[in-house]
């Protein structure tokens, strides 16, 4: 019964196009996409660097990055919270309880995923390309742009995995965003709020909308990378 109510609530939300609800959806997407973009901007080159460089302790770094993929969102949230709190080292920036703080926390969650998957993909691709690239004089780190570009469709999966983690996450954004109505309330924190108000059908309805959004973004990315991969062989 509750499930049926939830689907009804989900459809009402979508069809009703309530401005407050749309603002929540927009904020969720904006925060998560920005966090994923920031993580990709940092994680792709760092992952490629890790794949191609050899230094003492490299194995330990790889294990650490892989382990950080399982970093609990609450811990990431607390870390950012303590950094951004007025009493913390970055307090003067006044960023706590803002969307920017949420982007920071989510980027920290996504970064290890992007680095770890990029490292693996680039290492594999480099195994295949190494001699040809060396023949062209693209040795060492000069091979990175080619490897990232040619791995782009596989790397899209790394980005999507990061997007999935960020969009589903509630612990970190709740701590650093504060779930302020109309300002830092996202899909997931709204779900948490409605759950605590005991409005379980509405909470689940929001969850259904979130799943549909994630589904849509995954489908589009998947289709695009399939078409692209087919074209690029």
């Amino acid at each position, binding site marked *: 019964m509750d499930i049926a109510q939830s689907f009804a609530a989900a459809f009402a939300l979508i069809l009703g196009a309530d*401005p407050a609800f749309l603002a929540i959806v927009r904020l969720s997407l904006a925060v998560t996409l*920005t966090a994923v973009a920031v993580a990709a901007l940092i994680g792709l080159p760092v992952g490629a660097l890790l794949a191609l460089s050899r230094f003492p302790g490299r194995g330990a770094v790889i294990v650490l990055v892989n382990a950080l993929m399982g970093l609990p969102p609450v811990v990431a949230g607390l870390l950012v919270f303590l950094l951004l709190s007025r*009493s913390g080292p970055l307090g003067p920036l006044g960023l706590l309880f803002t*969307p920017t703080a949420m982007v920071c926390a989510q980027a920290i969650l996504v970064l290890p995923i992007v680095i770890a998957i990029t490292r693996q993909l680039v290492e594999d691709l480099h195994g295949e390309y190494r001699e040809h690239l060396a023949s062209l004089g693209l040795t060492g780190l000069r091979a990175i742009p080619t490897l990232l570009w040619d791995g782009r469709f596989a790397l899209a999966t790394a980005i999507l995995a990061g997007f999935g983690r960020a969009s589903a996450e509630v612990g970190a954004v709740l701590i650093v965003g504060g779930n302020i*109505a109309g300002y830092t309330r996202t899909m997931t924190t709204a779900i948490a709020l409605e*759950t605590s108000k005991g409005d379980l059908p509405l909470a689940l309805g929001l969850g259904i909308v979130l799943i549909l959004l994630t589904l849509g973004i995954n489908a589009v990315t998947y289709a695009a990378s399939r078409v692209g991969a087919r*074209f*690029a062989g």
Partner: protein
Amino acid sequence: MTTLPTRRHLIAATASLLAFGGVALAQDARPAAPATAAAGTRFITVASTTSTVDSGLFNHILPLFRAKTGIEVRVISQGTGQALDTGRRGDADVVFVHARAAEERFVAEGHGGPRRPVMYNDFVLIGPKADPAGIKGSRDIAAALRAIQTKATPFVSRGDRSGTHQAELALWTAAGIDLAATRGSWYREIGQGMGAALNTASGMNGYVLSDRATWLSFRNRGDLDILVEGDRRLFNQYGIMLVNPERHPHVKRADGQAFIDWIVSPEGQKAIADYQINGQQLFFANASDSGA
């Protein structure tokens, strides 16, 4: 398209992704409600409790304040203990909570103040309609708690240092029960907010102490009902304080004070008294009662 140079493309792709996110974020950095969407809005941050947010009180009164002053109020809902900590760290401009002893300590330690009484609501003891402890209809909260403890029927405690949690602990003491010595598996601390505690009690058909406001707006009641109410010891006073701008220079003293002044003014007090759910008044404004 794949015939374009490698580096250029990678950079362009990442940059456009970043730009998209950035633009979207910039749009959303402004308050969402269309009527309030002006860039560079004046706003203050208020650390308050789950009861004031979950009950919908703020949704009712904040637009009135906003319309009068143009100041947006961003509310973070936490347990009272957590909200006071947020004020201590300087992460909010105003603290609006309900645990008088903790509030007075906050003021005495110089974190903010002076404390102004605003309103009260009351706590109610919620439990299963079957009432295994046999306390339904009682007006004596102490006797009711003794019965729950004696029969060892499940009792859900917030366990989160919130105002409600502190009130609950004080009531056990008032009932002459030493929880530390007598608590067993029947006493279940969940360390979460009021809504979560009610959901848990609903799930296990247990007893739970709730503020009336949250209970009235709570939907997932299951087999629960109000069993004990009306005891004077169940009254729950709210106070409001400005965070000390001497300690935290970024605190918005003027705008924060404006909010405090408005909420204790006749206009603010009327707004509070006007808020109802299902025809029931939830909060009773009493700013004029200096002893509250």
